[in-house]
Every structure is written in C-alpha cells, then in structure tokens.
C-alpha cells in the first residue's frame, strides 16, 4: 500500500462519512486560512479538519480558487491547474464586463488579526478608488473620508474591500476604514491622507 493507495482509502472513507458539519469551522475561518495563511495553531487545527472533511475540503478549494485569482499574488502554491482555472475565470468575467485593467495593483500584506491596512488610493474616473486589506472574520467595513476640518466628506458601508468615492473636493482630506468583525469587535485603520479627485 503506497501513498496513493493510502490517499484513496482515506479519501473514500472521508467521502462516505455522513457529515453533520456541527464540528466544521465557520466559513470565515476557512476564508482566513485560504486568504491569509499564517500557520498558527488555530489555522493548523482548521487545516487538519479540512484534510479530513470532504465538504470543508470542497469549500476550502473553492476559496483557494478565488484567492488564486489575486492579481500580482505571489507564486501560487496551488496545483498548477488552479491558477490557470482562476485566470480562465477571470478572463471570462473580464470579457463580460469589458473592463480594462489599467490600475497598478498593490497587494496588501497579511494583516489578519491586526488593524486594517490601507492600500494606496488610485484615481478613478470621477473619484478615488480606496482599497484596504481584508481582515479575518470581518463582516463589513465602514469607510469614512473627512475634510481638513474633520467634517465627514464621504462614507460607505461595504462587505468588500474596495469602494470608489464620488468626486471629492477640498484640501486635507483623510480617510480611514473600520472593520466590523463577526464577534462584534471592531478594528480600525490609521487615518491616511487622500489625494483630491482632480
């Protein structure tokens, strides 16, 4: 019985176990491991579960497929087919909405578990594209832009990590992001300067 035979035997067993899923990690935990692997004890426990739970394995591979679509991502550790698959998916999506990928892409670091890391804003057609790194277990983000006097110039609530502001005028604009987590906690970014739209 070689490694492949062992794999098949275990895979067959795992696939045929009725799964109540009561012990499965929440989707956000799988997402955290897929998008921000840290290798800490908590994530290792999740990975051990994924390795022996067919439904979680499927979900994890789906999340990893989405992760592999990351532009400018480091060399993917996924099997060779996954980046190709992700790229193919991306091309389909891109062709459907006919967008031009003209933005320079800046990838944030792994800041899961810490504050929100703001990425450099880029000019959009009318306003500014604001991006930040995802925070593990965040359910929503609140973005606020304030003017030099501290007045609110723009705010938005989103589940994504990108917003495009309308045209913003004035000097001394600053922006920050607040991540609201699954457990009710809130993590905030630093307050960063924002270039005006025009």
């Amino acid at each position, binding site marked *: *019985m*070689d*490694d492949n*035979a*062992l794999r098949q*035997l*275990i*895979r067959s*067993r795992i696939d*045929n176990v*009725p*799964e109540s*899923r009561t012990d499965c990690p929440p*989707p956000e935990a799988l997402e955290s*491991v897929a998008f921000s*692997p840290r*290798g800490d004890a908590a*994530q*290792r426990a999740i*990975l051990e579960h994924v*390795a*022996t739970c067919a*439904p979680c394995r*499927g*979900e994890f*591979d*789906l*999340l990893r*497929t*989405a992760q592999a*679509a*990351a*532009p*400018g991502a480091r060399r993917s*550790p*996924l*099997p060779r*087919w*996954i980046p*190709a*698959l992700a790229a*193919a*998916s*991306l091309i389909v*999506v891109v062709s*459907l*909405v*006919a*967008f031009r990928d*003209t933005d320079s*892409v*800046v990838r944030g670091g792994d800041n899961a578990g810490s504050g929100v890391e703001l990425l450099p804003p*880029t000019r959009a*057609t009318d306003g500014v*594209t604001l*991006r930040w790194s995802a925070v593990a277990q965040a359910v929503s983000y609140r973005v606020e832009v304030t003017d030099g006097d501290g007045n609110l110039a723009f705010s938005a609530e989103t589940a*994504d*990590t*990108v917003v*495009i502001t309308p045209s913003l005028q004035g000097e001394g604009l600053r922006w920050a992001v607040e991540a609201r987590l699954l457990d009710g906690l809130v993590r905030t970014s630093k307050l960063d300067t924002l270039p005006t739209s025009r």
Partner: protein
Amino acid sequence: MVMSIGRRAGLADGDLDELIQGVRLRLWRTQGDDARAETVSASYVHQAARSAAIDIVRARRTVLASASESIHDTIIADTTSQPDVQLEERETADRIMAEVETLAPDRRVAVKLHLAGYQREEIASLLGWSDVRTRNLVHRGMIDLRTRLAALGLAPSGGS
C-alpha cells in the same frame, strides 16, 4: 474542460459557474454602466471573487444543514450494496486515521495534508514552513505512520 479540472480538484459541479456569476453580479451592482466598468481593477475583481466565494460557502452551509437528513439516509443505503468490502475498507481507513492522530503535531498536520492530496509547496505555504522543513516533516511523518501501520499488520510500502 474547466469543469473537468474543477471536478478533479474535488470542486462540486457548478461551483465555478456560481463563482463567476457571483463576481459578475458584484461588478454590475457596484460598477453599473460600462463607463464605470473602466475603473474596475484586477484587485477589485479579486475582492469580488473572494466575497462571492465566501457567500457560496455560507449558502451551501445553510442548504446542507436543511438537507442533512436525506443525505444521511442516502449514504446509509449505499453502504449496504457491498457490505463486506466496504466494511473492511472503512475499518482499515479508520485504523490508519487513528494512527495518524498519534503522530507528533507538526508531522500529523503535514501527513494529513499530504494524504489529502495537497502538494508539498501548498503545505509549505499554508503552514508558513520552508520547503525543506515541509519535506522533512512529510517524509518523517510518513515513515512514522508506515512503522505504526506495519505494527498493526497493514504493512504499507512506497515512499512519500
């Protein structure tokens, strides 16, 4: 072709379609007309893919919870088709998995991921290990496992 690739990786049929559809909906919802679509960056598509994927997982959990009873019945029915063979294989697999659980923690997680079919570089990335460390832990973990299985009379051969 894409679907066959997805199946090989264990992704359920339709997962990729669902993912693409989710991304499309998000882009349309947030970008609106074509002019705004010009502002879509690749990183935004990535974020849309991420949120679409997590939404699919959440939705699947909900569906599975409500369908768990019928799934359980189906599996129980299937196991009666070749009871002897399936019972033997199941018992063997259970013994192997029980032995895996007795490995040292680092070797255990490495072996589990290895037997789950993840490549060495994937394991290294997921666990934040160097390639050398990963190779070492998988190799030594598999040696430990084979030794233990041999003691149980399962005597696996072959390398990692």
